[in-house]
């Protein structure tokens, strides 16, 4: 615990004003240690807490003369990049069934699947010291030392490939006014079948300018080096980090839910959990698809066209072209009308359409109900 306090004192000491304001209780302040590194390992497996911790470090720690390496792992979750579209990147209904969370991170890049077999590393540095190649060198060198027989290489897209073919690591980063962080994944023993199930679009027909993910074949390190244990990997990474940057820090465990150590981190995590951040930040997009409607008794079929424009996660405009022979235009018009302004979310829309269905009795009720279900299925 003293180790943790010393490390946190190092973090706090540099941010002069904050210390004065909050009346820091940390007795130890080593300001003479001008160029130092810190290696932190998160005790939490909650993706939102860990992302909030990254934000907190980026915002509150003076990185001008020091670097930090943060190691973390999450319970199963899908993490999309800052400017991506969750509907096109991942299968939201499947994730709901499997209890897999969705988070949007603040750095750019593509979509990744996190679970206990995937190790995340974040390299914090000043904007001037931002060097992704050097950070990846830490990872590749560490792996080479552990298993010299494996062919591990970093590409110019900052991926790490195993045997020249399988992607075992992806990268993303964020640059602020003075600081930067670069984080990357490392597939140690992730659940590949879950990964392939969730990393596909929720619904067809999405047209958007959001950053697309580039799919690549992946492999786990344990597929090719079955004896490699995670603990061994962590030790090697820390050692290589120290060697590369000339530091001498040991791993310190941190708890991202500790408000007293990280003031304001709870609020940051709450923001990351919110619908407004996760879905509401999606760049404007359009969905155009064909709906197949059918009656059972007597059997009948019909195709309807659906065009929805979604802005900030909400339906901006909705156009439903249902043949007038199937149901009065007034009814399909009412459905489109009720959806505008609601979140592009099957649950929010469900509340709206069931309320609308109550007001509509008559012979077209069941067809209208089917149409509603078909539209909601598009929403993921």
């Amino acid at each position: 615990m003293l180790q943790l306090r010393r490390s946190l004192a190092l973090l706090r000491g540099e941010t002069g004003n904050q210390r004065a304001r909050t009346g820091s209780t940390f007795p130890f302040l080593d300001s003479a240690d001008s160029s130092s590194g810190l290696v932190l390992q998160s005790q939490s497996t909650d993706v939102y807490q860990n992302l909030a911790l990254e934000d907190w470090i980026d915002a509150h720690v003076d990185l001008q003369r020091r670097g930090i390496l943060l190691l973390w792992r999450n319970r199963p979750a899908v993490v999309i990049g800052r400017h991506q579209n969750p509907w096109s990147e991942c299968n939201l209904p499947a994730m709901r069934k499997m209890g897999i969370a969705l988070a949007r991170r603040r750095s750019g890049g593509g979509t990744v699947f996190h679970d206990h077999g995937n190790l995340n590393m974040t390299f914090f540095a000043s904007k001037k010291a931002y060097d992704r190649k050097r950070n990846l060198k830490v990872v590749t060198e560490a792996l080479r030392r552990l298993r010299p027989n494996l062919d591990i290489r970093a590409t110019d897209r900052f991926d790490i490939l195993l045997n020249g073919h399988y992607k075992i690591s992806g990268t993303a980063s964020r640059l602020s006014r003075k600081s930067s962080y670069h984080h990357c994944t490392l597939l140690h023993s992730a659940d590949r079948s879950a990964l392939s199930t969730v990393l596909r679009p929720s619904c067809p027909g999405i047209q958007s300018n959001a950053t697309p993910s580039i799919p690549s074949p992946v492999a786990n390190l344990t597929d090719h080096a079955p004896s490699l244990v995670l603990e061994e990997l962590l030790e090697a990474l820390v050692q290589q980090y120290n060697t590369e940057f000339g530091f001498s820090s040991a791993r310190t465990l941190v708890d991202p839910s500790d408000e007293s150590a990280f003031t304001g981190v709870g609020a940051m995590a709450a923001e990351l959990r919110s619908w407004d951040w996760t879905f509401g930040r999606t760049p404007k997009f359009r969905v155009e698809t064909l709906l197949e409607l059918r009656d059972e008794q007597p059997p009948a079929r019909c195709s309807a066209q659906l065009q929805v424009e979604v802005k900030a996660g909400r339906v901006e405009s909705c156009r439903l072209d249902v043949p007038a022979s199937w149901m009065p235009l007034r009814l399909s018009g009412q459905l489109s009308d009720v959806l505008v302004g609601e979140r592009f979310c099957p649950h929010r829309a469900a509340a709206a359409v069931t309320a609308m269905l109550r007001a509509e009795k008559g012979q077209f009720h069941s067809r209208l109900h089917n149409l509603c279900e078909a539209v909601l299925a598009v929403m993921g």
Partner: protein
Amino acid sequence: MAAVTRGSYIFVSRLLSQHLCRRSFRLQNFRSGRTLQPLTFRCSREPQVFSRRALHAASVCCGPVVQFKLSDIGEGIMEVTVKEWYVKEGDKVSQFDSICEVQSDKASVTITSRYDGVIKKLYYDVDATALVGKPLVDIETESSSEVIQEEDVVETPAMAREEHTHQEIKGHKTQATPAVRRLAMENNIKLSEVVGTGKDGRILKEDILNFLAKQTGAILPPAPVQEIQTPPPSPPSTAAPVGRPVSTTTVAKAPPPRATPVFTGKDVTEPVKGFHKAMVKTMTAALKIPHFGYCDEVDLSRLVALRTELKPIAESRGVKLSYMPFFIKAASLGLLHFPILNASVDEDCKNITYRASHNIGLAMDTNQGLLVPNVKNVQLLSVFEIAQELNRLQALGTAGQLSTAHLSGGTFTLSNIGSIGGTYAKPVILPPEVAIGALGKIQVLPRFGAGNQVVPAHIMKVSWSADHRVIDGATMCRFSNLWREYLENPASMVLDLK
């Protein structure tokens, strides 16, 4: 705080007179972050009433437009994609405010403003490619020429000036933008005394204004006029010594003429959309139904005792047991005897359909609004199973994950408004149903028991509404009586449970 003398307070009050502020503050709000120049201005001799509003900046005047170029991102990157704008043309920005988010090769970068000013032009649309070193936005900053014109001599207390130079000599690093520093200096405020509420303890304009308001509010006399008047025969509490600025509480005088607080709230109009629009339709259709109401009270004393007994058993099975499962089951038992209450009528009330399943809806207050999920086939479920289903629906409701399957197909509804409060209510029937009940809160009230003794009883009020086109008062009354009997004597439910 102690260093500020009375003399400087009067100075401050004059500074803040409307006449001066409009001119001085207009100038200082928009300047590019360069050297700190003391702004001097004329000082009026007339005492003026302090008006807080004068501190707010007036409209922008023309200044030089600066082209803010996209700075180097690093790693030899020459172009980025603009992903999101945080400002639009005409917005005011301060130094360090975020302007936009750009993305380059998996790196997301926040571009912050280097100047205070007004955004005049955005050079790129969202998703356009921006080039490093080329202009990103145009910012209109303050004009330097106008400053020179306004330079007049003012009686600045020598001491205050020294304090400020001291500040700079010591190199005390208090974070504040140049505009904020100037505002502080003009009002003889030491930045070290102001509590900064911005990022990293940075001092913002608001912090200076709050600091000023606190100072002047505390010590500035209500009106200079009062000091000249002779105090009238004062009430017993004449503790106020002569010569000191009096506060309004100790002397009974007419309150000084103060600027009446102006309410600046505005009406906000927005369109009714989505779920709420659908509710408008539903409720309009609902109130076309001719409702009649019928109310009663139920003595739940025995049910309360029963539930207390059963609660731990349910908890051991992982289910939270409230009173609702009992109310729902009793309603279903009643509906078996009065199936017309579980029916629906068509558009013109030409046909009535007696529904076989008892899908009893439960009105739930969620953050989206009033949602009514229903428990399907209550006639087949035990009280425990109903409790389980309710737990599940409540969890889904809280998580905002109720689907159309949960929300549609209801045949009868109970609204437990009493859990929030209330006794009697006038519930509105949810089409296509024909009846609804609203349950008030359970209160302990005195009632006559056996032997004409007054005993405490757990009383709950229930208010039913039904469609008078197909239901008559007597039917509703008999159903309610039956329902009430089951609940007042829970043992009788055992006889009829299927």
